[in-house]
């Protein structure tokens, strides 16, 4: 059973000038996590807003929990939870006030709403600040409270739009913990993110989107394989660079490449750990002690680079294609910089 289906969604702005979604289709099986991964302006928020009934698409259809979001938005709202890109809670009210209010709006009785608020505050480590106005909360606390508000009636399908953007590493880690906990509870989750490691960590499945289209879909492993296999990397002292290049090239069967600044020698390998052992032996025989050595699987950054021809961070919100050449030269510079 698919808990979420989006079928050829199109959404344009400014009379068609901006195609926020361009025939986007995706689906999420019940009880699984899909991460929608894309740079700024890719269309992540637009998808989430359509699936959560906040926005009507120009064309295409979508359903959540088997219910058509355009025909029966009221029914959809009963089974979803949404935590938008920006924490949406009343800043002048306290954490407790907010959760009780939302609980009441979910039609819990007064007592039940208070009880549930207490429970959620406890679970998200907010009990100590329950009686302080949200204004005094840190970004991470705000985000957690926002998430708590979307969990009041245990939604079947949960939407989280960039849940960790703007959080410090600790805040992110905490948020990840909370989300993993939720997923164990069996909720179907659609999560958007700009962070490749986040998608890797939390999701069963990843949909990479760019310019309103899904450009790749699969598990993190599958996506990485699509980009290419492993690379063997060795870092040595300056005086051993030449000899090490030879050894690595011989083991790999292909000419090794060198990052002079880092004194990092690398080459693609197919035999994994075997190649690693062989290189280490040869280095030992030659009396070379590597400073660092390892096998590197391609990161999702590499995935993005190979799929779109530009790094995720390079994406700029743009309206006309005229600016695109500018972006390209930026990328060229980046590559040059890495070589120098």
């Amino acid at each position: 059973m698919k808990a979420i289906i989006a079928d050829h969604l199109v959404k344009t702005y400014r009379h068609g000038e901006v195609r926020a979604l361009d025939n986007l289709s995706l689906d999420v099986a019940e009880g699984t996590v899909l991460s929608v991964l894309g740079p700024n302006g890719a269309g992540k928020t637009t998808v989430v807003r359509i699936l959560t009934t906040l926005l009507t698409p120009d064309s295409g259809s979508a359903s959540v929990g088997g219910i058509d979001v355009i025909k029966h938005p009221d029914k959809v709202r009963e089974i979803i939870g949404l935590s938008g890109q920006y924490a949406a809670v009343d800043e002048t009210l306290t954490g407790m006030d907010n959760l009780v209010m939302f609980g009441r709006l979910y039609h819990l009785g007064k007592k039940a709403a208070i009880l549930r608020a207490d429970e959620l505050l406890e679970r998200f480590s907010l009990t100590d600040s329950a009686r302080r106005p949200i204004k005094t909360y840190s970004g991470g606390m705000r985000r957690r409270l926002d998430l708590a508000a979307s969990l009041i009636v245990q939604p079947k399908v949960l939407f989280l739009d960039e849940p960790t953007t703007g959080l410090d590493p600790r805040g992110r880690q905490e948020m990840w913990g909370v989300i993993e906990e939720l997923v164990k509870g069996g909720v179907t989750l659609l999560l958007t993110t700009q962070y490749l490691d986040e998608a890797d960590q939390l999701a069963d499945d990843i949909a990479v989107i760019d310019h309103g289209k899904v450009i790749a879909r699969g598990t993190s492993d599958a996506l990485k394989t699509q980009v290419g296999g492993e690379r063997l990397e060795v870092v040595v002292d300056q005086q051993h660079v030449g000899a090490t290049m030879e050894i690595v090239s011989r083991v790999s069967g292909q000419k090794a490449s060198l990052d002079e600044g880092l004194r990092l020698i690398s080459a693609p390998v197919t035999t994994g750990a075997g190649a690693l052992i062989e290189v280490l032996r040869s280095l030992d025989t030659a009396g070379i002690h590597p400073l660092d050595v390892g096998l590197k699987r391609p990161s999702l950054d590499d995935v993005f680079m190979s799929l779109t021809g530009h790094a995720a961070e390079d994406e700029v919100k743009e309206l006309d294609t005229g600016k695109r050449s500018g972006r390209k030269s930026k990328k060229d510079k980046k590559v040059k910089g890495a070589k120098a």
Partner: protein
Amino acid sequence: MRALTDALIITKRQLLQLARVPEVLIFSTIQPVMFVLLFRYVFGGSINTGQPGGYVQLLMPGIFVQTTAFTLAATASGLAEDMTKGLIDRFRSLPISRSALVFGRTLGDGLLNVVVLFVMGIAGFLVGWRPTSGPVKIGLAFIFLLAFGYALSWVGIFAGLSARDYRVVQNVSFLITFPLTFLSNAFAPTTGMPRALQYVAEWNPVSTMVAACRELFGLKNQFGATAGSFPSEHPLPMSLIYMVLILLVFVPLSVRKYTHAAKK
């Protein structure tokens, strides 16, 4: 029924906000009270009304109406702030009636007027305002005022939902309500105005409301009726008509706009 309880929860949210930040309530009462004092003592001396009790008798209904007219700005900026901060998206993703949020807000702003009018009434009494018509008519006048504020609150909903940014909303709605309240018989006779403006002032709902209140408080509406227009001759029914018209236009318009609203 559910729509009503949902709306009341939203209203309660606004009352809670006032409890958490009481300054808001304090300052929204201080401003009209300051107006009472300023007009009473700065202009009051130089405007000769010939009315027993002096200028303050004519002034108070004017200030009451002006203050309730500012509900438009309060509603508009409050709602626009919710929009900008994404709170509206959350409300709209809840399984509640679509109109609950806007209904709740207009009710909340309407309730705030009860407090403000009460404090102003006391301030007015202290500086010499003495309505002479009797409790029923006085009560009716306040009900008219609350209803007028409530109707304008719906215009505020529409304005708030139309704005691109909540910081603009406050300015724009004052830009609308200020001329609206001064281009009227609220503070000075319309007879002193250029002919064209006189017509505007005579048909201005604010003038009609002020005239109605003056009548209900037991005064002759000296500041109007000079151009002999229909609203100034029949202020009571005309005020009712204006309020009903405003609600008839802006309730459906605002609810519709809210349903299609997007976060800016």
